[in-house]
C-alpha cells in the first residue's frame, strides 16, 4: 500500500536516500592552519551547528567555535559552509551537503582566533565608527515619541532593523576584502536605520562618518550582502539610501 509506505518512511529517523555518514572538512588553526577531515553520523533534520557540536563533543574536544541560542536570534554561530557564509544553527545539512560533503571554515574578512571562532571586534568597531549609537533628542521627562507605523521613515527603519549582527554580510562582501577599512554592510545598514529614526539627533555627524572613502560610496552594489543575509535584510538598499542622503547633504553644504 502506497500511503502506508510513505507514512512508514516518514516515521523513521533516517531518510533512506541519505548517506550514512558525512565527510566533514573543518578548519583547524588560526590564520595559519589546515583543514582536518572528520566523519560524522548523518541524522534527520541535522543542522551544520549540530555537526560541529558532534565533532567537539564526541571526536575532538579541542575544537573551538561559537554559538549561543541555536534558534537564529543571537548571531554568534556564523561560519563559512561550502564556500558561503551562513548561520549554522539554521542551515540544514540537507540543503548544503552535496553527496554528504561539508567544508566548514571560519567567517571571511575577520581575524581568526582559533578554528571556527573569529575576532568580531573589527566588525563591531565599524558599527561605532558609523555612529551606530542612538542619539536621543528628548529626556525621560518628555512624553513618549509618536512615530506612526505607516510613516515612510518608520517603514524605512523597519526594513533594516532586524539585524542580529552575525557578520554574514561582512564576510560575503568583496569590498571589505579589498579594503579592510570599509565599514561594511552591517554597520552601514545600522547607520541607515538610525538615519531613518525621526527621534535621533545625530544625523549630520553620522552622515559625515559614513560618507568617507571607506564609507557608503565605496560600495559596488554587488549585492552579495543581501544575497546571503540570513534575516533577508537588504543592506545594499540601505547603503544606496545613505549614498543618496550623503549626496544631497553634500550638495546642500551640510557635510
Amino acid at each position: 500500500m502506497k500511503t502506508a509506505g510513505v507514512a512508514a518512511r516518514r516515521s523513521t529517523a533516517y531518510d533512506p536516500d541519505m548517506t550514512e555518514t558525512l565527510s566533514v572538512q573543518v578548519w583547524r588553526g588560526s590564520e595559519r592552519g589546515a583543514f582536518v577531515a572528520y566523519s560524522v553520523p548523518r541524522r534527520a533534520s541535522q543542522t551544520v551547528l549540530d555537526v560541529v557540536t558532534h565533532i567537539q563533543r564526541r571526536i575532538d574536544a579541542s575544537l573551538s567555535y561559537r554559538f549561543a541560542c541555536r534558534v537564529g536570534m543571537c548571531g554568534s554561530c556564523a561560519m563559512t559552509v561550502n564556500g558561503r557564509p551562513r548561520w549554522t544553527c539554521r542551515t540544514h545539512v540537507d540543503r548544503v551537503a552535496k553527496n554528504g560533503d561539508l567544508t566548514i571554515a571560519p567567517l571571511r574578512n575577520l581575524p581568526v582566533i582559533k578554528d571556527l571562532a573569529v575576532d568580531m571586534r573589527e566588525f563591531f568597531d565599524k558599527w561605532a565608527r558609523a555612529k551606530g549609537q542612538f542619539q536621543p533628542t528628548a529626556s525621560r521627562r518628555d512624553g513618549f515619541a509618536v512615530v506612526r507605523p505607516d510613516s515612510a521613515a518608520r517603514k524605512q527603519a523597519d526594513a533594516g532593523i532586524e539585524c542580529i549582527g552575525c557578520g554574514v554580510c561582512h564576510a560575503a562582501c568583496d569590498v571589505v576584502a579589498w579594503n579592510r577599512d570599509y565599514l561594511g554592510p552591517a554597520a552601514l545598514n545600522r547607520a541607515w536605520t538610525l538615519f531613518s529614526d525621526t527621534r535621533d539627533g545625530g544625523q549630520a555627524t553620522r552622515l559625515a562618518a559614513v560618507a568617507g572613502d571607506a564609507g557608503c560610496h565605496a560600495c559596488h552594489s554587488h549585492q552579495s550582502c543581501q544575497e546571503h543575509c540570513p534575516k533577508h535584510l537588504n543592506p545594499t538598499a540601505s547603503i544606496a539610501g545613505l549614498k543618496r542622503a550623503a549626496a544631497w547633504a553634500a550638495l546642500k553644504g551640510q557635510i
Partner: protein
Amino acid sequence: MASGHRNHPTYWAFVLHRVSGLALALFLPVHFYVLAFAIEGEAALDGFLRWSAQPPVKIAEALLIVLLAAHLTGGLRVLAVEFLPWRDWQKTLVAAAGGLSVLVGLAFFLVAS
C-alpha cells in the same frame, strides 16, 4: 572567480560591467590607430575597410557592439541603483540590461550583414 558567495546575478552584472569597460578601454587605442589611416591616405583606409568586411571581423564587431551596449546599460543600471529609490526587482534589471545588449548586437548584425 565567481564560485561560492560570488555566484549570483548582480555579481555577474558587476563582472560584466568591469570586463566590458576594460575591453573597451583596450579597444579605443586600436580604434584611433585605424582612424589615423584616413590622414595617411585613402588607400590605406580603404584597404583596412575591405579587410574588415570579412565575416569573422563582422562577428567580432558585433561582439564589440554587445560589449558597448552592456557597458552602457550596466552603467544606467548602476546609476538607477545609486540615485533612484530602491527597487526590489534588481535581477529583472540585470536581465533587462543583458537582454537589451544582446538585442543591440543582433540589430547591428542584421544591419551590417
